[in-house]
């Protein structure tokens, strides 16, 4: 067991973990943060995307021990005072999901994308979310949601 201490969604947590424990397992099984989901388990789908020290990562592809001393934000830490984050609100507004399984990762990646590029073109959005797979929407309304969150006008 290895002792780790990190900040998750604003709270400091500390635990003894097996070195082989993945960050996503730690978040879900130890902290009960099941908002972050496991999709493909092969680092392809991006459903488990969280922010590690402010940058998006696939939490199935990071060991919990590697996050020692770091700051993690999950989908559960995005809203403030019960108010949805603008990207969450835009996904709701634009109907950017059907089954919803990819949504936590898709939103976390979109937040990261807008941090780098606050006014992305449609092509830049599509490239920016290339590591996140959605099998329902065809990505159309997801792109619209990102545009809406960026304050851009979109076609109805």
């Amino acid at each position, binding site marked *: 067991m290895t002792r780790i201490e990190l900040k998750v969604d604003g709270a400091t947590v500390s635990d003894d973990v097996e070195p082989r424990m993945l960050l996503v397992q730690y978040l879900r099984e130890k902290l009960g943060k099941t908002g972050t989901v496991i999709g493909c388990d092969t680092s392809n789908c991006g459903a488990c995307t969280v922010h590690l020290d402010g*940058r998006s990562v*696939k939490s199935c592809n990071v060991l919990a*021990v590697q996050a020692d001393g770091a700051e993690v934000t999950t989908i559960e830490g995005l809203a403030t005072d019960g108010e949805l984050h603008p990207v969450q609100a835009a996904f709701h507004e634009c109907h950017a999901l059907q089954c919803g399984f990819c949504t936590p990762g898709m939103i976390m990646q979109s937040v990261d994308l807008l941090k780098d590029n606050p006014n992305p073109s449609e092509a830049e959005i599509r490239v920016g979310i290339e590591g996140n797979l959605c099998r329902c929407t065809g990505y159309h309304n997801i792109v619209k949601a990102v545009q809406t969150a960026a304050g851009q006008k979109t076609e109805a």
Partner: protein
Amino acid sequence: MIPTQFAYVAPTSVEEALAALAEHGDEAKILAGGQSLLPVLRMRLNAPEVVIDIGKIDSLREIRDEGDTISIGAMATYAQILGDAGIRDSLSLLHKAITEVADPQIRHRGTLGGALVHADPAGDCGAPTLALEADLVIQGPGGERTVAATEFFEDLFTTAVGEDEILTAIRFRKHDGWGSHYEKFVRVAHQWPIVSVAASVKVEGGTISEARLGLVNMGSTALRATATEQALVGQPATEDGVRAACDLAAEGTNPPSDLNGDAAYRSHLATVLTRRAVLKAAGSS
């Protein structure tokens, strides 16, 4: 899936990491950014007894402008490299190839050094490293040694880095005045290339004076297309001018056959992609 159990050490200096390697030998595996190693561990394709995480060795993340060269610490992430203006300007080929690596999340964690030591022949980084004629700095119990890129990739997933050694930096001579292009052929977004070509070309008065070409996924390692490099010298930088030279791109290669295409298809792709890469590189200089 979950990896098999392993012990974990996280040294904070290269010396400590080398000591851990010396202690555990071939039972240990170095963890760099982990973006290739973790899938390998999860799928249990490898089951090391000890994982040595070098992510806490800050000195390995430095990118240094050394005048005629740029030294990239082995643990510099793709995102860090993409954000470096000196690399974008003076090593544009490397910059362009790295924009094509996987996806943003992987580029936040993955490292150039990790990718090169992993030595996947389908990885995007080997070809530009070969074409830019980088030197790889390796540290071991006996001190430091430097290996040319052409000597670094030995076989499938096998490099010149010994079991008791660590790659610490990759040193690139600046390629100011060279045109570059990375031409990647892929079936879906964020995947490994079926074939890609990294081209660095010098054009003087409309004529190609020098060319360096790296091929991805055309053999058990990244390769240089040396026959094409030589045949391009003295040719006009036009579609007709480079055609015959680029038709030699697959010479001396041994491309794999898989679900994405057989060897003959890859050989054909190599000639077409080389022509595109050379012309775009010539046009960008």
